């Protein structure tokens, strides 16, 4: 009896002492990730990690391959997720009260301002990173077969990112927010430019319908706020998370990232840097190497120049994650998120400006709400989505500026893209546009002919020239994408820095008060 008791007690004591190591073993059943085999099971035994493939190609680990932009976007999203949940503890989605609660977060809640700043900055970092990431995927021609569908998913992620950012912009319920959403509502209503011209608004008022769906009412008020809040904290994050999961999974299913055809010759030197590649029983490998004598290309490098994702890929990802966190913290530390006065429907902000990434469009909206807010963005968006199905060439896949024309064509497209958009804008700013020359002109004419559509037509023409010149759809795509990127930059800079009250041109915001 006593013996048995003692040994059970003993066992209990031994078990208790080994609890930490037992938990560790239960968690990582395959054992520590020290050999190729255990590293593999480490990856595919983990629900989050198994979105990655078990081995990663050396090419994909080069900084120049992705510039880490996809992971930067992911990291920024995770940061907004964490800080956003913290903000939800204090934020109250009701007009006026919302403003007070943001003020409390900013001035009273411990670390509230810091968290709000981080949230705001991470959101901006995410928008910038997603645009650059898309450009990276485009310029390396990574959208081609079998990756068309992943480009498609990315296309959805882009819209979701912008929508998340825009819905968040309203929540503080300050003047900035209120008038930005008012612009949004007017854009939603802008199909009236067309239906009015056709004289059918009375029967078919899709503009008003869109506006009401957006606002939940006929004016910007509590219905709109609760609607935007729900989208911002619930619906869009869920959509984003699901699209991201598919996006990552597809990378694995598509055979990793896109690579040039002669990739194996190119990564030879990289193998040294990632040595040792074989970790499974190295003794045998050496013996084998001795038997075959000499260095065949395969010696010292894994199958097809791949290395285990654990740890090679994960160090890269963690590094980028922390780097992004650092950037967001630095920005949050040196610059506070804006908070204007309480929203006041009677005192319009002048100029009322949308968030910065929509200011290029708002520049066109100042001529035609329909073209700037719906027509041109739709055209760009549909065009972007169709790229993989229109360019089915194979030359240059996986290479920066790969394909006919190459970097040189991109350089010329940049010059053309910047020059045209600056010239058209300068003309419109200096000489005015149709409305100033012919005050009675129907709006429909301006809807069709405005700086935005003129620039679009000029870009399309250049792209068709490039397509013919190189006899290549890829060359046409390179020219068009680059031009639109330049136009986006030019219009955004003008909308942000050079437009003041009544959307008039000013050389500097410091001249605004002279108005």
């Amino acid at each position: 009896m006593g013996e048995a008791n003692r040994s059970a007690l003993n066992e209990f004591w031994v078990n208790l002492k080994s609890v930490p190591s037992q938990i560790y073993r239960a968690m990582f059943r395959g054992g520590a990730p020290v050999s190729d085999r255990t590293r593999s099971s480490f990856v595919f035994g983990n629900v989050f990690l198994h979105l990655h493939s078990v081995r990663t190609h050396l090419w994909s680990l080069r900084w120049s391959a992705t510039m880490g932009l996809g992971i930067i976007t992911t990291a920024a999203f995770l940061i907004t997720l964490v800080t956003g949940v913290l903000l939800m503890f204090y934020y109250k989605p009701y007009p006026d009260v919302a403003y007070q609660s943001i003020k409390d977060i900013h001035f009273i809640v411990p670390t509230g301002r810091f968290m709000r700043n981080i949230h705001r900055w991470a959101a901006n970092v995410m928008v910038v990173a997603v645009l650059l990431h898309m450009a990276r995927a485009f310029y390396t021609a990574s959208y081609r077969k079998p990756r068309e569908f992943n480009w498609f998913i990315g296309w959805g992620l882009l819209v979701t990112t912008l929508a998340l950012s825009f819905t968040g912009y309203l929540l503080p319920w300050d003047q900035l927010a209120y008038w930005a959403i008012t612009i949004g509502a007017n854009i939603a209503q802008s199909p009236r430019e067309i239906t009015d011209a056709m004289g059918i608004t009375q029967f078919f008022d899709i503009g008003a319908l869109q506006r009401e769906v957006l606002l939940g009412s006929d004016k910007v008020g509590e219905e709109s706020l609760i609607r935007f809040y729900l989208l911002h904290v619930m619906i869009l994050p869920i959509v984003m998370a699901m699209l991201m999961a598919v996006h990552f999974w597809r990378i694995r299913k598509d055979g990793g990232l896109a690579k040039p055809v002669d990739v194996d010759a190119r990564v030879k030197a990289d193998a040294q840097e990632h040595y040792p590649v074989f970790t499974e029983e190295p003794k045998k490998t050496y013996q084998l190497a001795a038997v075959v004598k000499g260095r065949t290309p395969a010696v010292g490098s894994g199958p097809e120049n791949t290395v285990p994702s654990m740890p090679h890929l994960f160090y890269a990802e963690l590094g980028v994650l922390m780097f992004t966190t650092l950037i967001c913290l630095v920005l949050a530390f040196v610059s506070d998120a804006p908070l204007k006065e309480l929203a006041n429907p009677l005192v319009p902000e002048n100029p009322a400006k949308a968030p910065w990434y929509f200011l290029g469009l708002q520049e066109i909206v100042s001529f035609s709400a329909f073209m700037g807010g719906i027509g041109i963005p739709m055209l760009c968006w549909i065009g972007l989505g169709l790229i993989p199905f229109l360019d089915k060439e194979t030359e240059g896949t996986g290479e920066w500026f790969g394909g006919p024309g190459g970097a040189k064509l991109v350089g010329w497209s940049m010059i053309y893209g910047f020059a045209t958009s600056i010239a058209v804008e300068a003309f419109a700013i200096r000489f005015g546009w149709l409305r100033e020359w012919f005050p009675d002109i129907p709006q429909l004419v301006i809807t069709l002919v405005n700086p935005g559509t003129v620039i679009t037509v000029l870009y399309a023409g250049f792209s068709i020239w490039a397509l013919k010149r190189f006899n290549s759809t890829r060359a046409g795509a390179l020219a068009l994408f680059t031009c639109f990127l330049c136009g986006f930059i030019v219009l955004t800079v003008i909308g942000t820095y050079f437009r003041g009250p009544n959307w008039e041109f000013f050389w500097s915001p410091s001249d605004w008060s002279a108005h």
Partner: protein
Amino acid sequence: MKKNKYLLLISSLGVLALLVAAAISENFLKEWHAIQGQARTQEGPIDVKLRQIVNPDLRESGPLRDLPRRNGTRGTGPFGS
């Protein structure tokens, strides 16, 4: 991999440093600490706390300090007074 390890190390140290800096500024350098210090009365500094939005009809709770404590005394707010 070395490059990535350095990226991870340096970024992490940077984040740590900024978090410490934020903690210091949060606890010692916020402007309202000075204002609170100036508004000191005989009973100590004036409390700074969140205004609760209260519906008087529901006779909702007032500030935390008014809640009765187990021993029947009235407690102080979470940050003392």
